[in-house]
């Protein structure tokens, strides 16, 4: 095959190019020609096509995501904001923390194990790239119905992949979600979060500054993995019959990544890099163009120097390859020797492939011939921006008229039946079958993990400083009202870290939606972003980064709008956290927050085939007072335990609390059905020692949070009014579901 060079592009301007096959629209192709003043070479076309894909360019979402910057509160806690690989937050004592969520949805549908594994690998490299040591991962997941055949194919593979990769890297898995809904059949969601910690002085950025500095590619060799993979793939809707294409699957090598992490951290510790970028979606195309545009723009790369696993790869393919476990660093010539030496110690392949120039173009040669000559910003940042049409879909007003009145339990037998049903339903059942496949202990700093409200890790063994993270999405509410749904998910995630006594500091998100070319989906998306931006502004929390995943739909049926919101908080002394459940009998149980009768979007309504109604309205002022109360109570050690209420309402929260340490409780409830099954936001159960009750009541009064006495802890059963459910019976119902479904 002959090499398409810049000279050839000039000499042969009318060559027909397969831009459409690469996913570019005619006007996008035209604007590439305009930028370059000639037709692109095939290598340039490859670069533009992957970098201008929806996945890499955010072309449909950009105009909306701007709000996160525009509406943001100014905060000194944000050391690095949106735009870098991941945002960085000051957590005090000289420490900074970086965290981010990414999706790997479509690859995980095609090859569940490798898709999920490389999803974890990718987000971990994003965190490492900031200069941080990765310290934990989380995995919010969504699947089709639990008993669907394809779920049985997809779920075990995804769980094994998340575990297989994360366990081998030595990253504790401290939380996640497993939710089932019909709309995810054929569109499972695999979101992966990673959090890392560093000292302020260690922050690294993706910029290639300083003419004469060297461009070093290190890590795995480059193969044909996922050529046109994530990027093109993530931009295509699956036909109802199955995937439109079966491109080469990326296979992860967690061992190489583990070594890459240790090697990189040693390199960072000796301050050997000027800039650094991981290779993820769009591979070298992305890394070189982003690094170059982060600096003055000038960079020369000799593509033939790239070490190959498959020697038959063409230059276009080398540029597009998404081989995993690779990093690209900018290194001063005086430091290169030491850099290569550390790579050698860890047996990591490292190669100088180019240098930073004082020009303004990214120039790539192959065997001495110029094949790419572009202003790098036009590749990395100046991609197309679409203001896609949006329209409120008809269903929204339709389903708002639905009357949501599922049958509610009233007598003892019905209460017991309802409790056992809630305990066992796949969305609320015990997830140990999943989480027991994940190492939660490695690194020795895990304070909380599943099934706690949030994950918590210690970051300093001397001072006991720690961070907590929770991720939440309530797609049922987002479906009814995406604006409120986003705020409610934010509030829930914040509450989930506050119950433990951690103060919310920053937000990340992964926005999973159907096709942006559908105006209804686009409306859901726009409303979600508006809701999240407004919510963050009101709560004073910055959005530090995130990810958008579009085209999660089969035919014309999109997934429920699923904005997964992650909130990170700080706790000064992890030893003093408030645990999720009690270890003593004789404590008083209270419910904080008011309960209303609306069952719209609740699990109980869903269990009765009802999906409509009107979502609750988020009262963020009230949520903030509640968070305040939780933090104050934690400081004053008022609570023996605190546990958030969300999907499944009081019923599931009580079940989880009594089963945690096998200590029962007796509660008496008026309007028992609503009390147990309503999912009104802004509520928390707390367990209080009798001697601390009056101090606690005072605090609740000061914060204007309604409270209700529920009962007391103790015994070997959950007693609700006159219904008694033994802990043994309850445990069986709660823990058998996943074993029965997945073996």
């Amino acid at each position, binding site marked *: 095959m002959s090499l398409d060079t810049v000279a050839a592009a000039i000499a042969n301007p009318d060559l027909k190019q397969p831009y459409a096959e690469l996913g570019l629209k005619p006007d996008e192709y035209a604007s590439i020609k305009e930028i370059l003043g000639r037709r692109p070479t095939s290598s340039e076309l490859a670069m533009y096509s992957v970098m201008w894909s929806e996945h890499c360019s955010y072309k449909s979402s950009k105009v909306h995501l701007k709000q996160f910057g525009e509406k943001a509160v100014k905060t000194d806690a944000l050391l690095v904001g949106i735009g870098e690989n991941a945002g960085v937050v000051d957590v005090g004592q000289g420490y900074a923390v970086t965290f981010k969520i990414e999706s790997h949805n479509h690859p995980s549908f*095609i090859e569940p194990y490798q898709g999920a594994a490389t999803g974890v690998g990718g987000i971990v490299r994003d965190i490492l790239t900031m200069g941080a040591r990765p310290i934990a991962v989380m995995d919010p997941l969504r699947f089709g119905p639990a008993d669907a055949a394809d779920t049985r194919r997809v779920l075990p593979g995804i769980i094994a992949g998340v575990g297989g990769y994360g366990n081998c890297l030595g990253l504790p898995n401290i939380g996640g979600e497993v939710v089932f809904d019909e709309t995810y059949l054929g569109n499972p969601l695999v979101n992966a979060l990673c959090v890392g910690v560093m000292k302020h002085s260690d922050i690294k950025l993706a910029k290639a500054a300083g003419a004469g500095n060297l461009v070093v590619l290190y890590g*795995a060799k480059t193969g044909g993995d996922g050529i046109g993979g994530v990027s093109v793939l993530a931009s295509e809707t699956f036909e109802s019959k199955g995937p439109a294409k*079966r491109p080469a699957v990326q*296979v992860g090598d967690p061992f190489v990544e583990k070594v890459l992490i240790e090697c990189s951290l040693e390199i960072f510790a000796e301050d050997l890099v000027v800039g650094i970028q991981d290779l993820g979606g769009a591979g070298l195309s992305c890394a070189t163009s982003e690094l170059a545009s982060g600096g003055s723009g000038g960079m020369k790369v000799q593509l033939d120097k790239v070490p190959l696993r498959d020697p038959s790869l063409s230059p276009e393919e080398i540029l597009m390859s998404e*081989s995993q476990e690779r990093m690209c660093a900018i290194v001063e010539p005086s430091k290169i020797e030491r850099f290569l030496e550390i790579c050698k110690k860890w047996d990591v392949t490292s190669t100088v492939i180019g240098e930073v120039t004082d020009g303004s173009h990214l120039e790539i040669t192959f065997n001495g011939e110029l094949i790419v000559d572009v202003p790098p910003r036009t590749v990395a940042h100046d991609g197309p921006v679409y203001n896609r049409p949006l329209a409120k879909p008809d269903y929204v007003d339709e389903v708002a008229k639905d009357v949501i009145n599922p049958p509610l339990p009233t007598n003892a037998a019905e209460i017991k039946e309802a409790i056992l049903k809630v305990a066992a339903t796949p969305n609320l059942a015990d997830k140990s079958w999943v989480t027991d496949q994940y190492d939660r202990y490695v690194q020795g700093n895990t304070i909380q993990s599943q099934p706690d409200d949030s994950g918590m890790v210690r970051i300093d063994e001397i001072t006991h400083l720690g961070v907590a993270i929770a991720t939440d999405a309530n797609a049922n509410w987002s479906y009814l009202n995406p604006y409120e749904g986003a705020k409610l998910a934010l509030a829930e995630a914040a509450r989930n870290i506050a119950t433990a006594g951690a103060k919310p500091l920053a937000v990340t998100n992964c926005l999973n939606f159907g096709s942006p070319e559908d105006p209804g989906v686009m409306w859901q998306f726009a409303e979600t972003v508006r809701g999240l931006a407004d919510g963050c502004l009101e709560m004073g929390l910055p959005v530090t980064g995130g990810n958008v995943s579009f085209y999660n739909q089969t035919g014309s049926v999109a997934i429920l709008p699923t904005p997964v919101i992650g909130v990170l908080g700080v706790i000064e002394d992890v030893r003093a956290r408030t645990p999720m459940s009690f270890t003593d009998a004789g404590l008083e149980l209270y419910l904080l927050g008011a309960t209303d009768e609306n069952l719209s979007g609740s699990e109980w309504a869903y269990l009765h085939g009802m999906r409509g109604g009107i979502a609750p309205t988020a009262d963020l002022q009230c949520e903030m007072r509640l968070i305040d109360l939780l933090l104050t109570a934690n400081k004053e050690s008022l609570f023996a335990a605190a546990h958030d209420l969300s999907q499944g309402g009081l019923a599931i929260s009580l079940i989880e609390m009594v089963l945690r340490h096998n200590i029962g409780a007796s509660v008496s409830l008026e309007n028992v059905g609503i009390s147990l099954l309503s999912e009104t936001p802004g509520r928390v159960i707390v367990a209080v020692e009798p001697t601390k009750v009056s101090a606690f009541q005072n605090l609740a009064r000061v914060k204007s949070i309604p409270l209700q006495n529920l009962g007391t802890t103790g015994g070997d059963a959950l007693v609700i009014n006159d219904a008694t459910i033994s802990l043994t019976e309850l445990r069986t119902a709660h823990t058998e579901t996943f074993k029965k479904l997945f073996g």
Partner: protein
Amino acid sequence: MATIVVDVMLKPEILDPQGKAVAAALPRLGFAFATDVRQGKRFEITVEGDPTEAQLAEVRDAAEKLLSNPVIENFTVRVEK
């Protein structure tokens, strides 16, 4: 009784971390013979009597559905005496 062997190997273009690790370990132990190593799976399936053509077709079907992952792997089926 006969044994049907199904060999399952990663497709040549797919990364094989295990094979790579073995290939890297061999020279460290002083073995210089290998230019490449790929690691796959071998299934030994015992069947009653002599395998029939129909049975082999069934095994091929099972190899495709269960024993291998056609997205990333190839397989071969043969009878071992």
